[in-house]
């Protein structure tokens, strides 16, 4: 029910945007994320972007997980 998926914003028209998910374009509302820009990935829940995904944080998380995996492999 709280499902939200990452989609890429292709274009913005006032409070709505065209967003792409897996090659399909869909119209979403930006009323909850007025800061969203073209090229951002947003989390979409029931047609509304609820958050602009933070790429820097995502990369930091993955880097941390890589560190853990490398440390575990090294034993």
């Amino acid at each position, binding site marked *: 029910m709280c*499902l939200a998926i990452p989609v890429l914003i292709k274009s913005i028209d006032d409070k709505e945007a065209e967003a792409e998910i897996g090659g399909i374009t869909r119209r979403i*509302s930006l009323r909850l994320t007025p800061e969203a820009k073209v090229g951002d990935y947003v989390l979409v829940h*029931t*047609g509304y972007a*609820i958050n602009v995904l933070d790429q820097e944080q*995502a990369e930091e998380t993955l880097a941390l997980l*890589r560190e*853990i995996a490398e440390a575990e492999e090294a034993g």
Partner: protein
Amino acid sequence: MKYITEFRRSELAEGLISHIKRSSKTPARFMEFCGGHTVTIFRYGIRQVLPQNIEMVSGPGCPICVTANADLDKAFALAQIPDVIIATFGDMLKVPGSRSSLQKIKAEGAGVMTVYSTMDALKAAEDNPDKPVVFLGIGFETTAPTVAASILQAEERGIKNYYVLSLHKLCPPVIRALLDAGEVELGGLVCPGHVSTIIGSHPWEFIANEYGIPCVVSGFEPLDILQCVDMLVEQVEKGQSKVEIAYRRGVRPEGNRQALKLMEQVFEPCPARWRGMGEVADSGLKLREKYRRFDAEANFELKPGPVAEPAGCICGDILRGVKKPADCPLFGKVCLPESPVGPCMVSSEGSCSAYYLYGEGRGG
């Protein structure tokens, strides 16, 4: 970065699993509050790769499952009013109330339409100006701002035949009620990711501070859950209890201020009935007086009839985390996804549905 496959990489999962196994020394029970987390845990076989020390239990985080029959009956009574069109998310159709379901009522000729978004419900209201369109507002803090936004849009666009039956529920108050009931002892809480996208991580602090339970906000990919469990284990082993965010790409500590602002503008807290938990103070949302003209409850006379609960169904106990689906005598026998007795078998995020789909507790 596409934010999906990156968080499903097996070599990173192996690292986390190995780290969890090495660090975990103390037996602990972690509750995943959210039904979406339950689904990830089952889909990726996460229970099977965790050490025996760690027990995962599902919580009440499935909005459809926790909606009490008395409230479902109200929705069904609305659907039976001539000319009313009910707009609802598809997973509500099969949910049984005391006597019926939207699917049955629809088959009998009632106006029930499935929508993907409140934006579709608004369009239906514009396309059918002579008919009241009522959106069934069932959901947690993730969904409530989208419903608030729809009411504000209806106001802006002068749509006069759009209504909301607000059965929204708030998560922190019910977790407090669950902990105060003292039926289930928790060593850690996997906090709901997309609820936290809206409300932030601060509203969970009382759980860590007052109840001494470690809290970690998790995303919905397998690496997210494993990272969350790893962080919970670390807190358990260090004897700490604090709120941390594992899902940093999707959750900020302060949440989404714009969404919170709209939600607060349109709704105010009220008591709400939860299946299995009864009435919990300030755990629901009702429309503020200013938006009363959009409130289905204030504008239609509803006669839902007496409430009846399905005999033998233990959804309430399962939602409180005190019983598991396999403990239910109906599970997998008379209660099946195609003929559900209780809501936890209907919703794709319900515990019974997840247990059934992924074969746990079905025997054989």
